[in-house]
């Protein structure tokens, strides 16, 4: 039959029409490839712009200008037996006096004291309480300079701009420059950003409270949503009959994953805080609210992971007479764990970045010490960013970007762990 058609009509592949059609098909291939490539280039460019602008504004917050002061802990001002209640204000005033030995004008000393951070007395107090042996000694110490001078050093406040347009006047700048000339000003890594709690003074403000708060909230979130999510997924995937009711449950779990997070925040406020009487601002409540959001994600990824286990493994287990729970716990679940872990980490990473529900339950409080437990008031990384973004001081602009970079750092680390686990534990059949 094929032979007879070949004799009556020429082979279609060589006709002009076919060749033209082929050219058009190739053109369509190239177009599709181009659009895909263009989309990826755009996405990467946008990501680059985002990261670039964050780094440009944020990098300055990773260093902090310090001034070296000479501190004498006068036993008359600080009692060796009760160092906590000493007059550190006077100690700092004395140190400022030593900084400008030739100045006798009180106005100059007043300006001079503004160069040293407002938190200097607290820093000193903490040092002496930690080591009472310092009482009666004299030592030099690097303390942060206050925010305007930090900005001046970093070039955010420009010395050659008109005097009435900048935060510091000429006299203040020249006083500061005398310190620079004497080599007392030094810019070094700003570990306070990671290890200090929040502060009203940008030069002292850090993320430790927010990091600890986020950690507690994620811990609570994980402890609630991981076991519950897996249990729910196992029931739905392995036990639930396929009927209208399980369809409704399934649709609603998917819907739950799409509910705006602020709604969960309202729920947490109304139920967990007002009805159950749990404390406001606590990581416990934050974690519970976040777990509401992570739960559907974990259920969905766990079901997908269970579904991905080849039926042949189930059959093998059933074939030797394993009961349902043995099939699931001995064979299916262990093979699904890599997928479950990956999904869980990604769900937790989402929860880490979630802001709105935490604002509603009050995790945006101003707190100058990290929480001691899940019941104590705390902030979280995203809410800390929110607080800083709202603060008027110039130093918080860079610190907000730096905090975002820290948050992104945590997110990228978590996702990298997820990718590593997937590559490491994934099993191929």
């Amino acid at each position: 039959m094929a032979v007879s058609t070949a004799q009556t009509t020429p082979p279609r592949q060589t006709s002009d029409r076919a060749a033209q059609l082929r050219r058009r098909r190739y053109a369509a291939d190239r177009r599709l490839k181009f659009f895909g490539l263009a989309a990826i280039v755009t996405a990467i460019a946008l990501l680059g712009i985002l990261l670039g602008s964050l780094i440009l504004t944020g990098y300055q917050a990773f260093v902090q200008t310090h001034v070296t002061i000479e501190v004498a802990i006068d036993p008359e001002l600080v009692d060796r037996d009760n160092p906590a209640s000493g007059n550190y204000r006077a100690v700092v005033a004395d140190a400022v006096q030593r900084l400008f030995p030739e100045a006798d004008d009180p106005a100059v000393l007043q300006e001079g004291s503004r160069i040293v951070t407002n938190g200097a007395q607290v820093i000193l107090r903490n040092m002496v309480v930690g080591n009472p042996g310092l009482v009666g000694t004299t030592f030099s110490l690097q303390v942060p300079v206050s925010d305007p001078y930090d900005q001046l050093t970093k070039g955010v406040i420009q010395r050659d701009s008109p005097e009435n347009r900048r935060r510091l006047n000429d006299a203040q700048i020249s006083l500061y420059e005398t310190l620079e000339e004497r080599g007392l000003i030094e810019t070094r890594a700003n570990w306070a950003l990671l290890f200090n709690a929040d502060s009203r003074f940008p030069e002292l403000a850090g993320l430790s409270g927010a990091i600890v708060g986020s950690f507690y909230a994620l811990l609570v979130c994980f402890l609630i949503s991981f076991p519950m999510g897996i249990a729910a997924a196992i029931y739905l995937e392995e036990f639930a009959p396929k009927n209208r009711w399980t369809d409704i449950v399934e649709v609603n779990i998917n819907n739950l994953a799409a509910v705006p997070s602020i709604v969960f925040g309202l729920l947490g406020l109304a139920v967990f805080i007002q009805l159950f009487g749990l404390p406001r601002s606590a990581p416990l409540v934050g974690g519970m609210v976040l777990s509401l959001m992570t739960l559907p994600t974990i259920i969905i990824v766990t079901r997908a992971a269970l579904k991905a286990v080849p039926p042949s493994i189930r059959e093998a287990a059933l074939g030797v007479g394993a009961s349902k729970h043995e099939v699931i716990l001995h064979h299916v679940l262990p093979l699904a764990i890599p997928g479950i872990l990956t999904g869980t980490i990604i769900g937790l990473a989402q929860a880490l970045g979630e802001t709105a529900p935490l604002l509603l339950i009050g995790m945006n409080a101003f707190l100058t010490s990290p929480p001691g437990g899940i019941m104590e008031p705390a902030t979280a990384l995203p809410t800390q960013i929110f607080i800083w973004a709202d603060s008027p001081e110039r130093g918080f602009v860079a610190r907000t970007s730096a905090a975002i970079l820290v948050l992104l750092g945590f997110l990228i680390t978590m996702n990298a762990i997820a990718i590593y686990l997937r590559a490491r534990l994934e099993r191929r059949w």
Partner: protein
Amino acid sequence: MDQMTNTRFDAVTAAPHNHSTHAKVVGQDVNVFYGDKQALFDINLSIGERQVTALIGPSGCGKSTFLRCLNRMNDTIDICRVTGKIELDGGDIYDPSLDVVELRARVGMVFQKPNPFPKSIFENVAYGPRIHGLASGKAELEEIVERSLRKASLWEEVKDRLAESGTGLSGGQQQRLCIARAIAVSPEVILMDEPCSALDPIATAKIEELINELRENYTIIIVTHSMQQAARVSQRTAFFHLGVLVEEGPTDEIFTTPKDQRTMDYVTGRFG
């Protein structure tokens, strides 16, 4: 059609063949439905003890479905419904009071694609005895594993690497491991669903040899697409077509002097 299969059923049970052994598995008027679709129609088949029965027929004829009824593997498919009666040693296996876990220990299964657990070779074989509590100690468990692997002609090849993963073996070895795993729980019947379809001819020859040996102790029911294989390993053959058991009898008769035209057409390669 009903009448035809019924008479054949009678003929089988009454037939004074040289394989007239005790009927181990008996199916009576077995109908299987997947939802609204009927896959098997009034199957009446009696399977003798300690011999190999081959189920042959074209794809989709219901032979695998019938096989999977015998250890109630079809239970795992929600829409599957079985009517009629299947007896194992005279006891109805679809009796609600019957423990399906115990049934599957008595009726082992080997699947089309080798499916060892992604665990060690030892663990693959030891798993069944362990969950059924067949071994009272480590030594006894090790003995069961060795005995099962020996029976599956795999011991010599794997005795030095029992801790390695079962999935690292070759296809033929994996399938023999699966046979060892089935043997380990001391079943009475072993169901084999096209056990050689994923294997090369050499591995296939080994499995067939093994089936021949296992016949001494076990009742074996094998589904196969290869008529040569059915002819080589089985004593009796049942031919399924379109959900109907067309003919059942001694293997040599089925292949040389079938009574039904459809069987004749199939075994001579005219369709299928």
